[in-house]
């Protein structure tokens, strides 16, 4: 989406990165990364998303310095105070500063997001791609398993995993991650079906590539964009599901400032003390917005066709 020849300051590094004929694979890779990067930068929404995510990371990293208060400091006399100069987001039912809790909660949220992205997306992609590529009974078996997991209520599955792993927010998130892969698998399979027989895949087969190699190197990259979108889209849902598990005593334990749990506790106050549930809600919306926008941007930037 660049407009016209831009008289960009031509630094040596930039030229090197953008060299038309990179002399090494490393230079090409860096150049490609740089192109992706500058493509991202040119997309204002993606930049906004990136900034939000960056903000989340920074807030999480520097929570102790940013937060005006500890997340646990109760003051029963100051409970349920509306937002004010002193408490920007008001206080909760135990008189804790909601802003501080939201800030500290960023750490937990970040962990949730990272764990899920690391566990469930690759798993789902792999299963779906293998099933779609292999077809036949492999497809039947894999999709059977996927269907079993998919049709099992999330909560039940998560409960089982947590029962096996022991309670705690980390395990809860792992459980959620393990339960959310089937959706990715189904989508990946559907996409794979449309190009599993394509000539470029046949060409790789002809080179003697094993199935695993074809799937991981050639099939999966083509399913990536929809997975990225789905994963980033799911972030908010996952944060909220984590809160749901917390209800069973399997997720965040009080007084952990987990956003989902905060919202869930703030529910009873929603009509009169709206800020208790709404403030962490805003945080979740903002973060998931950030991830989604970044996801969209990444999708566009990673798509070589969109790149110039």
């Amino acid at each position: 989406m660049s407009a016209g020849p831009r008289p960009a300051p031509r630094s040596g590094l930039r030229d090197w990165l953008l060299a038309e004929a990179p002399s090494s694979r490393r230079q090409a890779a860096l150049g490609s990364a740089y192109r992706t990067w500058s493509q991202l930068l040119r997309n204002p929404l993606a930049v906004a998303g990136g900034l939000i995510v960056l903000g989340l990371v920074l807030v999480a990293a520097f929570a102790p310095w940013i937060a005006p208060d500890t997340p646990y400091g109760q003051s029963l006399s100051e409970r349920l105070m509306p937002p004010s100069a002193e408490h920007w987001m008001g206080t909760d039912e135990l008189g804790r500063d909601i802003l501080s809790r939201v800030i500290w909660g960023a750490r937990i949220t970040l962990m949730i997001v990272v764990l899920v992205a690391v566990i469930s997306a690759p798993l789902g992609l792999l299963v779906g791609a293998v099933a779609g590529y292999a077809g036949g009974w492999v497809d039947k078996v894999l999709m059977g398993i996927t269907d079993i997991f998919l049709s099992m209520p999330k909560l039940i599955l998560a409960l089982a995993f947590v029962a096996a792993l022991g309670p705690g927010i980390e395990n809860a998130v792992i459980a959620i991650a393990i339960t959310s892969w089937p959706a990715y698998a189904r989508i990946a399979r559907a996409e794979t079906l449309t190009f599993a027989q394509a000539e470029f895949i046949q060409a790789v087969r002809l080179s003697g590539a094993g199935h695993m190699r074809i799937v991981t190197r050639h099939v999966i990259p083509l399913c990536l964009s929809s997975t990225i979108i789905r994963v980033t889209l799911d972030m908010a849902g996952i944060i909220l599901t984590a809160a749901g598990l917390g209800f069973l005593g399997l997720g965040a334990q009080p007084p952990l400032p987990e956003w989902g749990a905060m919202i869930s506790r703030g529910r009873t106050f929603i009509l009169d003390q709206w800020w208790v549930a709404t403030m962490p809600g805003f945080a979740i919306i903002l973060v998931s917005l950030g991830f989604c926008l970044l996801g969209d941007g990444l999708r566009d930037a990673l798509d070589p066709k969109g790149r110039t």
Partner: protein
Amino acid sequence: MAPDMSAIPQPSTRPARGLRRASRGVAGFVLTTAVTFLGLLAITFFIGRVVPIDPALAVVGDRATQEQYEAARVALGLDRPLFVQFLVYVGDVMTGDLGQSITTNRPVAEDLARVFPATLEMATLGILAGVLIGVPVGVWAAVRQGTWIDQVIRIFALMGYSVPAFWLGLVGLALFYAGLGWVAGPGRIDIFYDGLVEPVTGLLLVDSLIAGDFTVFGNAVSHIVLPATILAFFSLAYIARMTRSFMLDQLGSEHVTTARVKGLPEWKVIWVHAFRPIRVPLVTVIGLSYAQLLEGSVMIETVFSWPGIGNYLTTALLNADMNAVLGATLVVGVVFVAINRLSDVAYRLLDPRAKR
């Protein structure tokens, strides 16, 4: 000089082979479905036993004596080996007996016949609205990629997915029910009308139409509108986003250019040439969302006092009411598998490339 394909002897085995294939397909379908269900039951069953809640306690409560507690365990069959319990259960299910719920003290099948239609009704309306709005909106955003329309749609759709459901539900109630009075409050129907129409399908909207009672129908509509809209918003977000992404891939492809070269009107280029090839992944996406809604949105059901399967399942789970959990899981499972199989069939119908 035309090469005459008909001159090539056609393999005479063709029709027979087709038949054999079809029958093998049906058998395979039945087999895989059966195995899927068995797996589903097995996993659910064994999960039910590792959950840190004692089902016998749900029956006898916390004041029971040891003796009563033991009696309840025996009555529930918990004293038998796990495997035997499972076999007994599967045997019962085969004969159509889903057992007795320990939290409602009624046959699970009866409970499900009551709660599932409630969810089905809401989810179906929700997904219908979600698809009818989400798909065109997603296509529109893709066609106008990068314009403000695109951005507005994307952000709006995102909201649907990130806003906690109960928040929307409560705010919706406060606004449209308490504030503006446009819709009826929580519940499926006003107390006045409760029990007026004979349940046939369990779907109030359908039942009231069958009975020809339009007042009840109108009341049921005004109750379902808000929760269904929220569900719709929820699925719409996802559907619109995925549609947009799939469409973007298509719009850049050569065959769309071909369509343009043909001078087709833009709507045809978009809906026939760009949209058709994405129906397969889209069907998956829609199937997934529908199934998700059918699993019952616990939060929405709670906020709207909707006696649906999500709530039923959750309550049962929290009380280790395993018959109810298994029964509900089975129903949800049947729905999922049905939807997935249907979308598999849809693949074959919609995308010739998926034929194998």
